[in-house]
């Protein structure tokens, strides 16, 4: 579990993180979202004891990171895949990390195998593609078989198979009861990965909730309807719901403000045949844009 209480970080006059409190629970994948400059990286660095908070604190399993004796056995992190000496081999990189926390060298070969880098273990890390560096970073995070895992943009540079692999991998780590905290800008990817979300903007907490709840709260559910008797259905719905044409060429209607069951009952009691009656959920992206509107640092002109 990760717990932040009143966490604050100033750089000179700039407030990067502002009185931030949240909890990351074990057994779930928690997404960490926010626009650029929202303070995500700074927060992650403070969790790992790399930056000192200006105020408040953040603990991992109830303890300050800096007070952990062999921290790699408690927390594994991948913040930047490029944090590797380019002239050192993948294996040597993991070996010194392992040694520092008394992790046996055999574990190095295990994690190399897990991420599929065994064949290139002796090659210098500087020659790795971004995807391979990413795998090496993941291997480093797994070294100590830690209960808490932090990933910053883990799918960066991975190909579709790698993306699927890491998503399933994070799900499994969570299913094993570990705490998995993932920061990413790829909302369509996060919607499939994270069960819980912590959303920040300008260093402040915007939301901490389940992904489902987050979307439900910020977007309106609609129902997509197709029917051979669309005109009659439209008349019946008039005054009870807001109806619009769908953008698709199949002539479907998009109905706002009522449950699909209501439309189904209405159709059945009037003998109207339905060809489709699908509830449409909002996307994580819509919800995110809705909620972070004010805290985006940098707007592109249209």
């Amino acid at each position, binding site marked *: 579990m990760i717990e932040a209480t009143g966490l604050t970080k100033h750089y000179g006059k700039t407030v990067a993180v502002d009185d931030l409190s949240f909890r990351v629970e074990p057994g779930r994948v928690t997404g960490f979202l926010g626009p650029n400059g929202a303070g995500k990286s700074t927060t992650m660095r403070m969790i790992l004891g790399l930056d000192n908070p200006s105020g408040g604190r953040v603990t991992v399993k109830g303890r300050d990171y800096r007070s952990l004796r062999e921290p790699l056995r408690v927390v594994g992190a991948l913040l930047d895949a490029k944090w590797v000496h*380019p002239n050192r081999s993948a294996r*040597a990189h993991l070996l010194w990390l392992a040694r520092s926390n008394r992790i046996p060298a055999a574990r190095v070969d295990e994690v190399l195998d897990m991420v599929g880098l065994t064949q290139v273990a002796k090659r210098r890390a500087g020659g790795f593609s971004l995807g391979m560096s990413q795998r090496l970073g993941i291997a480093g995070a797994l070294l100590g078989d830690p209960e808490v895992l932090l990933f910053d943009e883990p799918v960066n540079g991975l190909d579709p198979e790698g993306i699927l692999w890491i998503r399933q991998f994070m799900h499994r780590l969570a299913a094993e009861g570990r705490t998995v905290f993932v920061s990413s800008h790829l909302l369509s990817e996060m919607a499939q990965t994270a069960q819980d979300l912590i959303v920040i903007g300008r260093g402040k907490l915007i939301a901490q909730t389940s992904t489902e709840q987050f979307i439900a709260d910020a977007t309106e559910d609609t129902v997509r309807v197709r029917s051979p008797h669309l005109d009659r259905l439209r008349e019946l719905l008039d005054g009870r719901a807001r109806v619009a044409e769908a953008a698709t060429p199949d002539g479907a209607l998009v109905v706002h403000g009522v449950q699909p069951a209501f439309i189904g009952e209405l159709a059945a009691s009037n003998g109207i045949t339905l060809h489709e009656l699908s509830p449409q959920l909002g996307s994580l992206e819509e919800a995110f844009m809705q909620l972070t509107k004010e805290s985006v640092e940098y707007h592109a002109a249209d």
Partner: protein
Amino acid sequence: MTLLAVERIKLFSTRSPWWCMLLALGLTVGITAIIAANWTDSPMPVLGAVFTHTFGLYVVMVMAALAVTTEYRFGTIKSTFQAVPDRISPMVAKAVVVVLLSGLVGLASAFGSWGLSWVLAEDNSDLALTTANDWRHVAGVGLVYAAGALLALGVGALVRQTAGAVSIILVFALVVESVVGFIPNIGDDIQKWMPFTVASKFIFGDPDPSAIPNGAGPPAIGELSPWGSFGYFAGIALVIYIVSLVVVKRRDA
């Protein structure tokens, strides 16, 4: 012990320390060999055999600075502090490994130079290591390299950038220390307290000034005794290193 092993793996799993060590040995032993082979008019003194040690010192200091600055350059310092969050122990372990290694390089360089001179010099009757002073001239190189490495580690950790740290060290040792001598009136007084000038007095210093070959090296006797000179140089290195530890501990990684 664990952290020493960590730093050993880090140091020897990249190529640049190997190149630096080879270069340090090659420069000192190689140039000494040329000097020895051409030393014809008089018996070659012990000091002649270690005259080139400063070239190796600069290379060793660059190696030590790199050991810290590349960690910042490539971000591995974050992994290091993630693995050992108290920060001081990995920095101390790094210092132990780098300082020991530098000392060994110094010994290898000095005894290599001396041995080759023995073989190559026409008259090696003065090269025998008979007195404690003779031993200091040669073995002392190991101590100077070790202290120099500690100084470079401190500068590297403070500056964090390879180019910056290396230029500070080289510009100070090669330019600043000689240029201050030209300041009117006080120049000489300042110069004789400059760390690298003092360090060379530990190697070259001899209670008997006539032992210095003509024109070779600075005046033999400084303000301090030879061992006092080393204490002064090592003290400055230690202070800079300790300051760097305090800064590293407090600063955001």
